[in-house]
């Protein structure tokens, strides 16, 4: 394995997983059985020809391997790092039945990193079509759609409300897991293919909805950035953060370097992070790097956590203490947080998602001594722009309703990524963006 030791890495924000060397990659690729009916391809939400690219890696043809990956996935250096491979390609790898599955994610990352370091070649771009397409949001969905649309020859403008592109990849996922130069390089490629990125544009405000709808086609990829709060007492005390705020202060604004950078973040001695997903793991590990003793509070069991396996494993190595089957009921404090009131949960019958539904145990209340609380209990679709577009149909959870081509209730408006699905994954965001881009290309060709 190629992880930096926990004792050193908790003092910095440099990448934890150092990736494979060329020798390691070739050896790993050589293990692949090259199945006639490869299950891994079916496990990949964007259907990368996995055996084909692995065969090239085994031969040392890294450039060809990269080309094959990028036929289906413009952002392989990102996906190789953050996809939940254990429930996708690697989860169905036939080798996993007897020994360990091929490390497909690590190989994908290897070829992407190799290509970036040796100068990426751009896919061919078709002749200009004269059609204008607006993409709203520069997260994985927006960037993926912009790449496919630019490749088809359309004039693509990507609008982003923040001062940096990348969406969650930039403001949410910390650099020790997703180095920012990797994100920048992947976005740079899309720009080199001809897409224009306009930052500091909050569409709906800086660009009125009518001007947006005047484009020949529109792709909405505004994500699910609205943080949920639990609604427990004490939630607005100084020292209580949403994971989004805490992570944004550090990842986007570099508060860990305050006062060299101007944005501050609170430093606490003992931090409780509430949640069991990737967001909770990231918040916990950032708090750890800012010097705190960190408790992760999750209401179900560890095996029910939705986070990637690797993140759970890394968090534990870094000394994060897991308090599972525990639910917070109140935050205590007067001028600042002094404690978190919790109750133990017992696991009852399975719910609709196949996970046991937790029930509070009477008399099990206890107070955890902490001076900061970070809530990572989920986010929902950004309501701002979609509520300003008349006639845009939305589901009960605020998501934009789309058909299988990604088309919304307005014929020339498409949507994909978290705004359509609710908070999901990078690869699902990309998969839905590819479908929508194909739908837009078809519509513009036929029109």
């Amino acid at each position, binding site marked *: 394995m190629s992880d930096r030791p926990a004792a050193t890495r908790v003092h910095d924000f440099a990448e934890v997983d150092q990736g494979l060397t060329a020798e390691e990659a070739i050896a790993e690729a050589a293990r692949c059985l090259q199945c006639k009916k490869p299950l891994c391809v079916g496990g990949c939400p964007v259907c990368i020809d996995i055996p084909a690219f692995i065969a090239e890696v085994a031969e040392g043809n890294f450039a060809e391997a990269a080309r094959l990956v990028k036929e289906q996935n413009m952002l392989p250096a990102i996906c190789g790092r953050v996809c939940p491979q254990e429930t996708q390609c690697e989860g169905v790898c036939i080798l996993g039945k007897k020994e360990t599955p091929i490390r497909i994610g690590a190989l994908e990352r290897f070829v992407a990193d190799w290509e970036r370091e040796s100068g990426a070649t751009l896919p061919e771009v078709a002749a200009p079509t004269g059609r204008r397409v607006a993409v709203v949001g520069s997260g994985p969905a927006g960037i993926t759609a912009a790449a496919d649309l630019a490749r088809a020859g359309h004039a693509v403008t990507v609008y982003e409300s923040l*001062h940096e592109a990348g969406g969650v990849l930039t403001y949410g996922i910390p650099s020790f897991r997703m180095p920012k130069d990797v994100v920048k390089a992947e976005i740079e490629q899309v720009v080199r293919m001809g897409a224009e990125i306009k930052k500091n544009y909050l569409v709906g405000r800086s660009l009125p909805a009518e001007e947006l709808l005047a484009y020949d086609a529109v792709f909405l990829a505004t994500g699910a950035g609205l943080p949920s709060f639990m609604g427990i007492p004490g939630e607005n005390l100084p020292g209580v953060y949403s994971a989004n705020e805490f992570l*944004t202060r550090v990842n986007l604004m570099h508060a860990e370097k305050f006062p060299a950078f101007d944005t501050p973040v609170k430093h606490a001695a003992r931090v409780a992070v509430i949640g069991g997903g990737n967001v909770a793991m990231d918040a916990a590990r950032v708090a750890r790097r800012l010097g705190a003793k960190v408790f992760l509070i999750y209401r179900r069991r560890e095996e029910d956590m939705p986070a990637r396996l690797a993140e759970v494993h890394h968090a534990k190595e870094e000394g994060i203490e897991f308090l599972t089957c525990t639910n917070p009921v109140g935050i205590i404090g007067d001028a600042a947080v002094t404690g978190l009131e919790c109750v133990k949960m017992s696991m009852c019958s399975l719910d609709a998602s196949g996970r046991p539904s937790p029930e509070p145990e009477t008399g099990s209340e206890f107070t955890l001594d902490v001076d900061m609380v970070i809530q990572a209990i989920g986010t929902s679709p950004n309501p701002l722009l979609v509520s300003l577009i008349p006639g845009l149909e939305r589901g009960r959870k605020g998501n934009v309703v789309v058909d299988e081509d990604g088309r919304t209730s307005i014929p020339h408006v498409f949507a994909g990524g978290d705004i359509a699905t609710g908070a999901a994954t990078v690869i699902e965001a990309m998969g839905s963006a590819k479908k929508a881009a194909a739908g837009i290309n078809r519509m513009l060709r036929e029109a």
Partner: protein
Amino acid sequence: MYTINTATEIADKIFEFWIDAPQVARNARAGQFLILRIDEKGERVPLTISAVDGDAVRVVFMAVGKTTEHLATLQAGDTLADVVGPLGKPSEIREYGTCCLVGGGAGIACTPIIARELKAAGNHVIGIIGSRNADLLILEDEMREVCDELFITTDDGSKGFHGYAADVLKRELDHRTIDAVWIIGPAIMMKVTSAATLPYGVKTFVSLNPIMVDGTGMCGSCRVTVGGETKFACVDGPEFDAHQVDFAELMQRQRIYTDQEKLAAEKFAEHVCRCGEGGHCHE
């Protein structure tokens, strides 16, 4: 990059900037704000849009800490790394009848743009602007021009009414009908002044200024309690029904970073006097 067209100190420590930001200027309405970032190391600071002219917007700010002190050192022709806006919901402009705009200190900067829109919507507009003393009073001429009536107050009596804006507001409420009131200024001033309108049952708006990060509704730093519910001031506001606001919580949340703000301001002051290049020259 966004160019500062003019930079003027209009009163002690109060600065007026006109900034070229077409996408903000073309879409701005009364009551909205923008967020700017000076440079790559800067923080995102919210400032109210105080006027619009073509592709430029005006902001008026008081130098109170690191970022606003740094901003104050910039001059016409300098650039800002980022400006985004307009943010927040516009003021609820409609025909109320008689409206009163109360501005305190640097908060006066937010009032003329609202006064103008209220006037255009057919209202009779009264202005009450107050400051500690005559030298700190800003935008008096502009308010005199847009309002039908203008009252001035100073805490020390050096100009106009000797006392607080709340006193004049109460006096006016006692002898005539006022249908809507806007109060904009420091949190404590908004709290005290809006208490004055409560007994009269007048619709009263305040523009809240909690600490913000993105200003687009994705972090919750700006959350405030209004009518017992948590709201995000950057997207649900910044203007809210004054009589529903939990001001004590707002003021507590504004103090979250007091220690760090002090440190940043001290460090910046050191650098200003040593090299004149602002807090970022040393790296």
